[in-house]
């Protein structure tokens, strides 16, 4: 699936996304297990809330990390990856 700027995603049902103090990272929890996310994946998924469009996510993160190169490409591929893994669902 190609990710469009107008797409809106939410965390997939039966999945939970949360910050883990003990791991010092964001995690995704689901019936068969869990995934510990790296910093940038955590940043992206924090903004996946069923309201923000991909466009908003990109803009927000660009503001936050001004000097990072190729940020947009990274964000889009992260969203695609999360979608392929069924951690997130498209709602529009």
């Amino acid at each position, binding site marked *: 699936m190609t990710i469009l700027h107008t797409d809106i995603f939410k965390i997939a*049902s*039966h999945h*939970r996304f*949360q910050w*883990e103090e*003990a*791991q010092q990272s964001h*995690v995704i*929890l*689901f*019936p068969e*297990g*869990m995934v510990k996310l790296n910093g940038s994946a955590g940043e992206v998924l924090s903004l996946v809330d069923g309201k923000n469009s991909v466009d908003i996510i990109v803009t927000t993160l660009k503001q936050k990390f001004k000097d990072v190169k190729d940020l947009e490409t990274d964000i889009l591929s992260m969203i695609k990856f999360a979608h392929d893994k069924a951690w997130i669902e498209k709602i529009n």
Partner: protein
Amino acid sequence: MVTQNNGVAASVTHTQPLWLLAEITYRCPLHCAFCYNPTDYDKHTQNELSTEQWMNVLRDARKLGALQLGISGGEPLLRDDIEEIVVEAKKLGYYSNLITSGVGLTEKRIQAFKEGGLDHIQLSMHDITEEINNFITNTKTFELKKKVAAMIKNHGYPMVLNVVIHRYNIGHIKEILDMAEALGADYLELANTQYYGWSLINRNQLMPTKEQIDHAEKVTNEFREKVGSKMKVFFVVPDYFSDRPKKCMNGWGEVFMIVTANGDVLPCHSARVLPNIEFPNVRDKGLMWAWQDSPAFNRYRGDSWMKEPCRTCPEKEKDLGGCRCQAFLLSGDAESADPVCSLSPNHPIIEKAIEDAKNPTLQAQPILFRNDKNSKKILSGEAKDLIKDFHAVP
């Protein structure tokens, strides 16, 4: 870090119990012949932890880093405080999973679980005689499961069905798959029996042949093609038929912690069969000590405990020498390689077990069902001849 063998370091200290399994009661309305509960469970049914004690376990485990909570048993629904436990689990940030046979699940209770924040329910199909037969022949139990399955789905839970596979139902794999589809299962786990506790005693009667397993796997694959993404089917191949052992519990005291009905803290379900290890109990020095400092949890962490052939084996990181309980139960030496491994000098034990399971006389022996009477018999020594081959139980 512990001592390093052949240059491989094993981390011992910084492990976190990501999974907490609460075997909340050993009471159970079913009597499965392949139950992995301890055969002497009867002595653990009297002194169950209180609700308050479970709350403390949940809190302390969370502090240690636990994230996934499994509530199982026995039949957990026999306790009437699961509702409270679920609420606390949610508050603490666990992803919680109730593992139940469905017996005792009512509309009222499931509603309370949902409102309380239970994340997930796993429905198990366990009983070998009645339940599976009924299940296959579409009678009473199937009706119950159907009702429960509908309840689970209506409350927005995924329908996760777990069926233990053994000789008595492996021939009906097609029917089981169809029934799972009829129940609207989203996930189906076909778990081949593992031989611990009751199932070990009944191994000759329960173990299917390699041909049966291959056939079942083939049927499962065909079914997968047919249903596509609608239903995910997992087929767990039994370790007896492979030549390397499983990495049991992902390593002793690595990520998994079990607290039993009476408060014992274990690194795996059957660890209490191991000799000369005193397992900590939450009533004594608490969970933190149990996980981090107790001699029991440090006993087989890392790999410094290993003997040959594991000690110098280039594959040791992959399986950590397999399962300590299986090694002990079958060979009498908990520190030896899991006999499943073809490099183990004890591997012939596995080959013999597979042969024995083809022997019609042994197959025809009566099954010892998991019930209080039989547990007492084992405790009192009356059923000695049944367990003489195994270094298990008193």
